[in-house]
């Protein structure tokens, strides 16, 4: 198979290749020298797509590491620095965060494709194992990467996942604890944990890249499987990889990049969790803790088993079972096209996995349905689907392999395939986990969903209403700043919302900022400058708590991104004080009723009232107006690069659409030759 047919014409290339045959290596690996089955369909695009997204992750990851600080007091701040101050930092971070989702998405489809067409069967078992090793490395890398921003979800993910190993205590007491402490480098997740996770998160992608090389090597030894699952009989069944599959892969890449760009530019936090915009707090677990969407099915399996050790064993088994597929499946026929029974069960299993993913995203005590006294909650629901998951591998696959009567196989690979209908179906399927994996449906029980408001920054062309942001800043400065800090906001930022430099300087000068030490070693106060950040109203969290009845007023820099429903939520909170609490709710002393606050009781007294500020631009300061303005301002502080993101997004989308259309026609014309030959 690996015969190199490379015959360089160019003398320089020939001279070089005689001494280091890297060009003929590439020629044989991904060039005209690699003969592929003629009939590979669009499901075969996902291998190269996975390689592409690995490249995206490595490139964006390396540059993010130039700005990220793996230190527990600075990690979160350094991510905010990347988002706010580093040139294109927002783009690189959003690409990296969503690139991980894209990478997992294409790898999942790649794995499903392998399972459907029997690519794991002889003679490709080693190829299959190498792929699974890549997947395991990806899971470890993705998990450790998620820890690095050191938000609430990061921290608690680190704690929960490392604690999986503590279940070993139930087999050999003490060993689990020892392993977990070894993983942490301490008695809880902390500084040493973050440092080693960063080191490993930087290392593992290169290990993945190395295993990818082995994966491709193994692929070239036996050659690609194909949709018919039958062996290639000779050259008449094959076409060179380049240009046919490079063109086809490029078209798939164009489509995948459009999806990627939609996420990065228009929904960058859609697959993330709001709580990860809250700095890690080792003393408080978030009320809802969920992993990233790509781990949800396994998380559902873990949760559905009411025994710690067995739950962990089930979790690992659910993944490692894939290694046994070459032996669990006794059928000699590879492709599910000729396996009528297997095909049905395959799709049932896919649905089972997707449903498990959905279950994993929901709170366990949620009721699925109830009829009279009979009700099914998500735990039972999850148990049923977990049971089926294992039933599929341990019972259905082996039995079907033995008893199924396959359809007759064709004599040879006869027809080249170029059906764009298939591509459309694949695009639709790619969107599926995106929908199932979002964490939207999460209001605390009994808390109503805030009504949607109209905001200037909504939609793909949204921009901040400068006047509203400026008025909102006035409300923040005169009202909210009494208790709430705004630590990531610098006075220089005001020039981005229509203030002149002189105006911004004047605003900065209204605040006193601590500086020093001076020549005598003393700290001193001086008027603020443009480079200064907004000084906090209290010197530290303890002072803030002491002055606010024991409740800490949260920093507002990220509040819009850190709360479900974002600006709508903040607006609803601000405008719904003073309502009559439900009869059965006893309001604790020092708390106030607010229907939109989770639990209904908030420590903050009603902050706004009509005419509380006198707007410089003469706008009438109604309560609604104030709330709307301050929510607009806080959205801008949370996401100052939104306008740059929308503007660049438009250009990137326009480019990608034109490029993909060109790729479509190039590809179509190229393959027309093959079709004509049939």
């Amino acid at each position, binding site marked *: 198979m690996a015969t190199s047919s490379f015959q360089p014409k160019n003398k320089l290339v020939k001279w070089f290749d005689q001494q280091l045959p890297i060009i003929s290596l590439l020629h044989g690996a991904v060039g*005209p020298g690699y003969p592929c089955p003629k009939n590979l369909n669009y499901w075969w695009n996902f291998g190269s797509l996975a390689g592409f997204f690995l490249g995206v992750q490595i490139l964006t990851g390396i540059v993010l590491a130039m700005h990220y600080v793996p230190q527990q007091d600075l990690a979160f701040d350094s991510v905010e620095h990347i988002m706010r*101050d*580093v040139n294109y930092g927002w783009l690189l971070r959003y690409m990296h965060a969503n690139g991980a989702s894209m990478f997992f998405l294409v790898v999942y489809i790649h794995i499903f494709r392998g399972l459907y067409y029997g690519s794991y069967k002889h003679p490709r078992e080693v190829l299959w194992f190498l792929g699974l090793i890549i997947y395991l490395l990806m899971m470890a890398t993705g998990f450790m990467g998620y820890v690095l921003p050191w938000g609430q979800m990061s921290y608690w993910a680190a704690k929960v996942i490392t604690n999986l190993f503590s279940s070993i205590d139930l087999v050999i007491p003490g060993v689990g604890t020892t392993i977990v402490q070894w993983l942490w480098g301490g008695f809880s997740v902390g500084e040493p944990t973050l440092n080693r996770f960063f080191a490993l998160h930087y290392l593992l992608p290169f290990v993945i890249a190395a295993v990818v090389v082995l994966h491709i090597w193994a692929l070239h030894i036996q050659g690609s499987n194909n949709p018919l699952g039958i062996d290639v009989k000779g050259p008449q069944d094959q076409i060179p990889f380049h240009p046919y599959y490079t063109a086809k892969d490029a078209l798939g890449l164009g489509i995948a990049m459009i999806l990627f760009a939609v996420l990065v530019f228009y929904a960058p936090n859609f697959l993330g969790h709001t709580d990860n915009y809250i700095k890690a707090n080792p003393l408080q677990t978030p009320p809802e803790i969920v992993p990233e969407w790509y781990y949800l099915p396994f998380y559902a399996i873990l949760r559905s088993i009411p025994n710690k050790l067995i739950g962990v064993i089930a979790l690992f088994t659910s993944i490692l079972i894939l290694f046994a597929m070459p032996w669990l499946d006794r059928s000699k026929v590879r492709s599910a096209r000729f396996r009528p029974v297997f095909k049905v069960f395959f799709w049932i299993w896919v649905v089972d996995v997707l449903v498990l993913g959905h279950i994993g995203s929901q709170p366990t005590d949620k009721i699925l349905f109830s009829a009279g006294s009979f009700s099914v909650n998500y735990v039972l629901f999850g148990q049923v689907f977990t049971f089926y998951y294992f039933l599929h591998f341990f019972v259905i696959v082996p039995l079907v392999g033995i008893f199924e009567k396959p359809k007759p196989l064709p004599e040879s690979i006869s027809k080249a395939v170029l059906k764009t209908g298939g591509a459309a179906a694949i695009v639709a399927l790619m969107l599926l986990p995106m929908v199932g994996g979002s964490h939207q449906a999460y209001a605390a029980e009994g808390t109503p969903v805030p009504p949607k408001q109209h905001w200037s920054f909504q939609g793909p062309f949204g921009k901040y209403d400068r006047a509203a942001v400026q008025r909102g800043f006035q409300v923040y400065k005169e009202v909210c700043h009494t208790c709430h800090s705004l630590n990531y906001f610098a006075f220089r930022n005001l020039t981005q919302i229509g203030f002149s430099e002189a105006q911004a300087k004047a605003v900065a000068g209204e605040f006193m900022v601590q500086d020093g030490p001076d020549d005598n070693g003393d700290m001193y106060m001086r008027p603020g400058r443009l480079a200064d950040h907004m000084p906090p109203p209290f010197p530290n969290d303890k002072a803030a708590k002491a002055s606010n009845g024991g409740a800490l007023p949260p920093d507002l820099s990220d509040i819009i991104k850190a709360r479900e429903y974002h600006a709508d939520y903040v607006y609803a909170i601000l405008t719904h004080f003073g309502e009559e609490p439900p009869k059965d709710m006893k309001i604790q002393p020092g708390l106030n009723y607010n229907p939109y606050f989770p639990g209904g009781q908030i420590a903050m007294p009603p902050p706004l009232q009509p005419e509380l500020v006198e707007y410089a631009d003469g706008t009438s300061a109604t309560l609604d107006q104030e709330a709307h303005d301050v929510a607009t301002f806080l959205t801008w502080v949370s996401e100052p690069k939104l306008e740059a993101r929308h503007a660049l997004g438009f250009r990137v989308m326009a480019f990608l659409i034109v490029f993909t259309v060109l790729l479509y026609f190039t590809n179509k014309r190229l393959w027309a030759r093959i079709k004509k030959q049939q």
Partner: protein
Amino acid sequence: MTTSQPVVGTPDGKTRRDFLSVATAALGAVGAAATVWPLIDQMNPSADVLALSSTEVDISAIPAGQAITVVWRGQPVFVRHRTEKEIKEAQDVKVAALRDPQTDASRVLKPEWLIVVGVCTHLGCVPLGQKPGEKRGDYDGWYCPCHGSEYDTSGRIRQGPAPANLAVPPYSFLDDSHIRIG
């Protein structure tokens, strides 16, 4: 458009290039090149670094003949209270004979105060001469210990490998005893 029917997979891999595939490849190359820019630009100074560009200094406590070093943009800035003799030395130099010809008047706002970036223009070391007793070279200014460049009392290069005078940062006098650099 479809008159050519090249043989599929000929050994030399040659197929007729047409406008469509060239345009597609060219557009792809343009896109890839444009993508590189954010990866490069992220290494430029970030917005917060650019904003940290001014330092206020109290110069009232510096006696004539002495100097202090302050930090501006992470670099040392020499603030030297020159004596009458030093000012005269600086003013009496034949400008045309200098390697980097600049009059002393063009390098100061007030003759008593010389403010220069304390970084040798050769390869970035900090020259000696700030503290009493440090080597100042033959021209009574600064002497760079790395490769022997010598600067005069106006911070101009007089001898050694450095190509240019010590840079004068942007600064202004807030009042008689305070300056703001940057």
